[in-house]
C-alpha cells in the first residue's frame, strides 16, 4: 500500500481522482436530474473529435476539445434541450463527431495510439500540470455553481415549473452546459472521454436511490466516485489490469446495489 504511494505518478493519480470526484459530485447530480446523461455521452464523443482537431491543427488538443464542446453546448442550450434528448439526434451527433474525429486524426497523420489515449485516457500517466488544471477547474466550477445554485436547482429538478416561474432559464442552462463541457474536456484527458461519461452519470444515478436532498446526493455521489477511482487504482496497481475496467465495474456494482436497495425498501 505504502509502496504504491511512493510513486509520484500514483500520487498524482490519487489526487486527480479526488478532484474528479468533486466535479462528478457537483455536476453529476444535475446531469442526472436534467436527464442529460446522453448529451454528456455525446459531449465526450464531441471532445474526442475536438481533440483530434487540435492535433490536426498542431495545437494543444485541450484547445480543440474546449472549442468543440463549448460551441456544441451553446448550440444545444439555445436551440433547446428537448432536441438534444431525442434519440435520433443523439445518434446523429455521436456518429457525426466520431467520424469527424477519425477524419482529423487521419489528416493529422499521427499514430492511432493517440486516439485510444483520448477515448480511454490514462490516469496513471498524468503530470503535475494536469493536476493543476484540474484543481483550477474544480475551484471555478464550485464558485460558479454556488453563484447560480438556486436557479440551477429549480431549473434542473423542476424543469417545467421553472420554465414558467423563474427567469433566465436559458442563461442558466447555457452556463451549466458550458461548465459540463469544460468538465468533460479537462477530465477526458485524464480518465478518457468514455470513462468520464460513466463517472458523471452512474454515481449520481446510484445516489438518488439512497438519499433525497441535493446536498446529500452531491456528497454521496462524491463518495461513490471516490470509492470507484481509488479502489480502481489500487486494484489496477496490484493486478496490473487496466484501471478503467475496475472503475467501471465498481461503479456498476454500486448502481446494482442501489437499484436492489430501492426495490427492497419500496415493498
Amino acid at each position, binding site marked *: 500500500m505504502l509502496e504504491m504511494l511512493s510513486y509520484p505518478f500514483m500520487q498524482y493519480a490519487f489526487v486527480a481522482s479526488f478532484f474528479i470526484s468533486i466535479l462528478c459530485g457537483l455536476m453529476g447530480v444535475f446531469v442526472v*436530474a436534467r436527464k442529460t446523461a446522453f448529451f454528456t455521452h455525446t459531449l465526450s464523443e464531441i471532445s474526442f473529435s475536438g481533440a483530434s482537431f487540435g492535433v490536426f491543427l498542431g495545437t494543444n488538443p485541450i484547445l480543440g476539445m474546449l472549442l468543440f464542446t463549448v460551441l456544441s453546448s451553446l448550440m444545444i442550450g439555445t436551440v433547446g434541450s428537448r432536441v438534444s434528448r431525442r434519440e435520433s439526434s443523439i445518434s446523429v451527433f455521436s456518429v457525426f463527431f466520431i467520424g469527424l474525429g477519425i477524419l482529423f486524426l487521419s489528416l493529422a497523420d499521427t499514430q492511432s495510439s493517440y486516439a485510444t489515449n483520448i477515448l480511454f485516457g490514462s490516469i496513471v500517466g498524468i503530470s503535475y500540470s494536469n493536476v493543476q488544471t484540474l484543481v483550477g477547474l474544480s475551484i471555478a466550477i464550485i464558485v460558479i455553481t*454556488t*453563484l447560480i*445554485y*438556486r*436557479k440551477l*436547482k*429549480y431549473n434542473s*429538478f*423542476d*424543469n*417545467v*415549473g*421553472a420554465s*414558467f*416561474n*423563474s*427567469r433566465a432559464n436559458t442563461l442558466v442552462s447555457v452556463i451549466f452546459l458550458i461548465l459540463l463541457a469544460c468538465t468533460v474536456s479537462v477530465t477526458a484527458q485524464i480518465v478518457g472521454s468514455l470513462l468520464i461519461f460513466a463517472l458523471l452519470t452512474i454515481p449520481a444515478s446510484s445516489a*438518488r*436511490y439512497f*438519499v*433525497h*436532498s*441535493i446536498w446529500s*446526493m452531491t456528497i454521496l455521489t462524491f463518495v461513490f466516485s471516490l470509492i470507484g477511482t481509488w479502489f480502481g487504482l489500487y486494484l489496477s496497481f496490484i493486478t496490473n489490469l487496466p484501471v478503467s475496467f475496475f472503475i467501471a465495474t465498481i461503479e456498476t456494482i454500486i448502481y446494482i446495489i442501489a437499484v436492489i436497495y*430501492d426495490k427492497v425498501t*419500496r415493498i
Partner: protein
Amino acid sequence: MSTESNLILSVRDLDVSVKNRKLISDLSFDIFAKTLTCVTGENGVGKTTLIKTILKQFNKNEHVQSKIKRSDMQYIPQLRNIDDDYPLTVFDFIGLGLQHSILPWLSKKEKQSVQKVIEMTKLQDLANTPLGSCSGGEQQRVYLAQALVSQPKLLILDESTASLDKEAKFMLLDVVKSVIAETGASVLFITHDPVLVQQYGDYDLNIANQAGTIKPVKEAQ
C-alpha cells in the same frame, strides 16, 4: 361591489391565437383580490393558451395590465414530468420555489416559510417523503405549496384536479379556499368540472365560440 384598489389583473381586448390560428378574440375581464375565478370551456377552446398568452404579455402592453409584479404571480402547469423515482423530498421540492435570495442554502426564515406552507397544504406527514412516491393528489398539493412559498398575489392553477379522484379534488380546492382566506391571494383556476365551479368559484369565465364571458357564479344559480 369590487373597487379599483382590489383590481389584481385587468385584461382588455386580448386576442389569443396559436400558430396564427385565432382561438379567442377581443377578450376582456378583471380579476379582483381574494377571489377564485374559474376558467371553463370545452377542450381545445384555448384555456391554457389564454393563460400562456397572459403570462407572455404580462404588463408588456395595454392588453394585460396588472399592478403586481411578474414574480408575484405563480403558474402551476397541468403536467410536470415527475417520475416515480424522482428523488427530492416534498420539503426540498417546495423549497425550489424560493428564488428571491442567491444564498445556496435556505435561511432559517425560509425553512420556516416552507414549514408554514406544508401546514397550510396539509402535507406534514409527507415532508420527508420523496415526491416520486406521493400520490397524484398529494403531488398537486405539493405543487400548490411550492407556488405558495414565494407568497404570490395571483395563483394560476391549470387543470390541477383533472387526474384526481373526487375526494382529492375537494381536498385540494378546500386548501385553495383557505389559502385565499389566509393570504388574500386571488386564484385563476382552469377546470372542466361544473361541480367544482358551483361549489368553490366566485366568478366563471366561460370561453366558447372564440369569445369569453365572465359572470359571478352565485347569481348565475
